């Protein structure tokens, strides 16, 4: 059965919730799809041990007139209809306008030992812990790059982890320059200050990265390279992430053009959030990493524009410009050290789904040829992890198009469209 929405929003994080609220304020029928069981996205992910923040609570209760389709994964698209899969089967959702607020994923880079149980993303372990992952008393090292490391360490500590240290790859100089600029975004400055205060006593080291992880069937120790040499640290968990990259899987499936000349391109949009595809808008991290303020303001702009009220959208544009300036500061302050691109050896598995070592890709310059010969990127995650990693390593160009199903789906979810090739190709 097909449900029809005036405005359909994909993603119930800060951008998607703002878009839904804005669109619903014009009396439109609005639906919000999210793959997670609860709204909030990654930034406002529900923590089983903690009440939601006031901002999260407010954003979630503000969509009381919106239909929330939680636990729905988008698997395919045809015309102005998305097919989703939930625990109850397949659903077809038709839209007048679509807002893509698909957010970001963590950039995870290969290094020797990164496939050991106990090695996770930094935001990854934070998300797991918020949903009950047993961390109390565990020795955890947080590493990688960006402001997310502090937020992750804070959550881990709140759940009882023993955080041994935070290792940021950016140099002390880059961090000092970042801090010197931060006063221009007072909310961000306050947030950073309060995190640093709460994390007093946890060593924070710049110019440092994890070069290898060791263990038999599970993580036992890591090696950290820093300004003063290499050091081995015994730990139970390594939470390592190199910042965020836009999640453009669905936008690419819909044919939305991406930004040019970017290693991890976001969706190309104009000031109102129009993508290159008619009636399809995008907002927030999917259009380039900018943080919470950008997501909320762009979500509201796209929501108004999707509901046909360009005047309300235009009124918010100056705030968007200001918020987006923070994206540039983040990108240059936490630019990755080229040494990180050389951590994986030819034997290091890069495609975790198919166990393809980096060396197996050496003879290929073309993504398609490499995939066909090595099966790299052909497994369950469909290249979500290795694709971004290889783009960061400069091995292959970032993907542009996308074929369905967007996520592995049950055959009966796809079968309802048997005979329609656009929905069944490649499954």
């Amino acid at each position: 059965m097909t449900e029809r929405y005036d405005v359909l929003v994909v993603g119930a994080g800060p951008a998607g919730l703002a878009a839904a609220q804005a669109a619903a304020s014009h009396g439109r029928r609005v639906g919000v799809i999210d793959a997670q069981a609860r709204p909030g996205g990654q930034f406002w992910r529900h923590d089983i041990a903690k009440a939601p923040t006031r901002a999260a609570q407010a954003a979630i209760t503000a969509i009381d007139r919106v239909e929330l389709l939680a636990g729905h994964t988008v698997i395919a698209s045809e015309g102005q209809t998305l097919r989703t899969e939930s625990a109850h089967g397949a659903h077809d959702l038709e839209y007048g306008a679509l807002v893509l607020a698909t957010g970001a994923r963590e950039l995870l880079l290969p290094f020797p030992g990164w496939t050991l149980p106990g090695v996770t993303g930094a935001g990854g372990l934070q998300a797991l812990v918020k949903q009950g992952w047993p961390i109390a008393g565990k020795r955890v090292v947080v590493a990688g790059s960006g402001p997310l490391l502090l937020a992750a360490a804070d959550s881990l500590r709140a759940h009882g982890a023993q955080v041994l240290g935070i290792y940021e790859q950016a140099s002390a100089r880059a961090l000092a320059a970042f801090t010197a600029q931060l006063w221009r975004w007072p909310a961000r400055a306050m947030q950073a200050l309060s995190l640093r205060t709460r994390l007093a006593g946890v060593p924070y080291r710049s110019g440092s990265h994890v070069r290898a992880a060791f263990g038999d069937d599970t993580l036992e120790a890591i090696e950290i390279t820093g300004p003063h040499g290499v050091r081995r640290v015994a730990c139970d968990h390594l939470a390592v992430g190199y910042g965020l990259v836009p999640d453009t899987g669905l936008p690419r499936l819909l044919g939305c053009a991406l930004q040019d000349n970017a290693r991890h391109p976001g969706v190309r949009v104009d000031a109102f959030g129009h993508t290159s595809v008619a009636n399809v808008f995008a907002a927030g991290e999917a259009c380039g990493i900018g943080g919470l303020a950008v997501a909320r303001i762009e979500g509201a702009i796209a929501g108004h524009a999707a509901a046909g009220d360009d005047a309300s959208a235009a009124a918010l544009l100056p705030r968007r410009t200001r918020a987006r300036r923070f994206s540039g500061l983040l990108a240059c302050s936490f630019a990755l050290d080229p040494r990180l691109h050389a951590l994986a050896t030819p034997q290091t598995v890069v495609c975790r789904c198919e166990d393809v070592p980096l060396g197996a890709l050496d003879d290929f310059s073309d993504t398609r040829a490499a995939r066909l010969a090595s099966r790299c990127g052909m497994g369950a995650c469909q290249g979500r992890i290795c694709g971004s990693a290889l783009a960061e390593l400069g091995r292959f160009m970032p993907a542009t198009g996308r074929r369905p199903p967007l996520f592995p789906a049950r055959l009966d979810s796809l079968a309802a469209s048997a005979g329609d090739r656009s929905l069944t190709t490649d499954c």
Partner: protein
Amino acid sequence: MSDGLIHLRVNGQPVAVPEGTNVAAAVARVSTGFRRSVHGEPRAPLCGMGACFECRVRVDGHANVRACMTPARAGMQVQTDD
């Protein structure tokens, strides 16, 4: 049960977790490995948000369920690939 916990089984072992816990957190109480890679290496959750598929397990007979995306429910039977 009236203890406010969700009771399920992971690899046949009883596990009790608070409301709001996902299957990944329930499995972690019993096993460090979630699945075996194509070459037999143990694997466990990596991304925590449904992208990497390293946490997939069998839930009530359904294979390839992402443990990190699935709320724990009373009576669930979860099986890792260890």
